[in-house]
């Protein structure tokens, strides 16, 4: 990829805190206009990476380029064209929605006139037209998240860095955010998002990087990753003795993972398995298409959360 088409480039980035390795020899590139996901459980290093891209954490080693600027050395210049949705809302709770946008626009050196010119379209985008003069402390969690999203767009950024944008939201609010993010992608924005929701990653991301313990354990398009690592239906079985069941179903499975009391059986011919298990008291059997959760389980031997 030539530099002008690359939004983010990490090469051999390392970071430790107090002797603990948080990010380990990480390299990836994000193309302009792409939605790139950092997927992993809590503690995988996702937030650290997001903060590194903004110059808020300095790497111990490696190179980071954001919108063609070296970070952290020229992070401020890069940030002028980046919008940020942090993991925890840090809105001005005592200010109205409109005041939040005004104050934030000034941090980018925007004039009051310029800010006032863009505020109506941001409010419309975030579906907050009727809440412009409401105090943020009075808004619901989903609305606050949308204020944060509108705020991140005040400087008309090329790139959005979103750290767990829908964590803590109810399904309805989450779907609304996803829909808004797809609109942004259709407008050509680049998005880097961290998430531990498989569904979020599958729905939004063009490509993603699966992280565990600060290391990249897989990278690619979601459907390709699923196909490569799983490539068949999954049958979840629980309610019995996992060890006994494992022996029983082994002939019908390409691979079996045990997590807690649940068996994940990757079965090319799930019907045979269902026949085998039919009539066994107390067993619950669920057949479904494979997803990124299975990829993570397959790669690490454990579940995401």
């Amino acid at each position, binding site marked *: 990829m030539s530099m002008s088409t690359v939004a983010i480039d990490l090469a051999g980035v390392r970071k430790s805190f107090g002797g603990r390795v948080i990010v380990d020899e990480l390299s990836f590139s994000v193309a302009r206009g792409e939605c790139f996901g950092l997927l992993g459980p809590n503690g995988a290093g996702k937030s650290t990476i997001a903060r590194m891209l*903004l110059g808020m954490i*300095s790497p111990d080693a490696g190179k980071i380029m954001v919108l063609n600027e070296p970070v952290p050395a020229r992070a401020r210049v890069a940030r002028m064209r980046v919008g940020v949705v*942090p993991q925890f809302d*840090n809105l001005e709770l*005592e200010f109205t929605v409109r005041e939040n946008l005004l104050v934030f626009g000034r*941090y980018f050196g925007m004039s009051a006139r310029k800010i006032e010119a863009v505020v109506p379209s941001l409010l419309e985008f975030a579906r907050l037209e009727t809440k412009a003069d409401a105090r943020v402390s009075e808004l619901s969690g989903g609305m606050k998240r949308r204020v944060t999203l509108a705020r991140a767009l005040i400087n008309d950024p090329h790139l959005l860095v979103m750290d767990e944008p829908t964590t803590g939201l109810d399904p309805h609010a989450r779907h609304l955010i996803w829909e808004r993010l797809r609109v942004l992608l259709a407008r050509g924005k680049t998005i880097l998002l961290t998430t531990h929701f498989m569904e979020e990653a599958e729905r939004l991301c063009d490509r993603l990087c699966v992280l565990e313990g600060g290391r990249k354990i897989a990278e690619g398009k979601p459907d390709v990753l699923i196909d490569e690592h799983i490539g068949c239906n999954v049958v979840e079985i629980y309610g019995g003795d996992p060890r006994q069941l494992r022996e029983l179903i082994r002939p019908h499975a390409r691979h079996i993972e045990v997590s807690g009391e649940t068996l994940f059986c990757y079965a090319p011919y799930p019907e045979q398995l269902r026949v085998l298990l039919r009539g066994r008291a107390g067993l619950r059997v669920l057949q479904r298409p494979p997803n990124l959760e299975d990829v993570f389980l397959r790669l690490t031997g454990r579940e995401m959360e």
Partner: protein
Amino acid sequence: MGESYAAVMPTNAYNWIAVWRRNFLAWKKVAMASILGNLADPLTNLFGLGFGLGLIVGRVEGTSYIAFLAAGMVATSAMTSATFETMYAAFARMDAKRTWEAILSTGLTLGDIVLGELVWAATKSVLAGTAIGIVAVALGYASWLSILYAMPTIALTGLVFASMAMVVISLAPSYDYFVFYQTLVLSPMVFLCGVVFPTSQLPGSFQHFVGLLPLAHSVDLIRPAMLERGVDSVALHVAALCVYTVVPFFASIAVFRRRLLR
């Protein structure tokens, strides 16, 4: 290393204004309560000590005790309002409220934030110091013009104590540590720096030490201005106050960088 420090310093001469305006907007919403709160404590001291002690003390350095004390109270209220604005309000914005974190994701740097907070705290000092001055004028202990003369020193005093408090909050893990700074640094300074009695009352060796304290330099500038007397060694006092502003300012940025931008 030099490069990474350069990246956190103030960007230019005006970026900090956005931070100042954020604080001004927040203050406007609670302005009345804030002004009353700022006035209550120094006025209590002024009237309590001024009328009470003033009766016993009589005249000090050729003026009434309450006029002598009023100048000291202007300097002290400038000190406490800048200190408290920084230690409590700015600390909350840096820590629990995550305001600084939000600003650090924009076109501003850590240095811009710290500078904006300093000037804001100094603004509150000017409000508080001037308010005491106006009371003194209304009671006939100072003239309107003298308050105007004192104002630059009030502002500089605000910068000094905001800057010093900035170092305290950059180092303090939580609010609980601020009390040490209040009781071990600020309170003794009030008694040592000529606020409530002339420094000439102190033992000789103490007087040399007092010459190193910032509040003494503030008082030595504000009192002559309010009593409309000539000021001795203006340049020395101003220079001392500038050192007390600039050195802690850069020190606090260096510590904040280690704390917030690891």
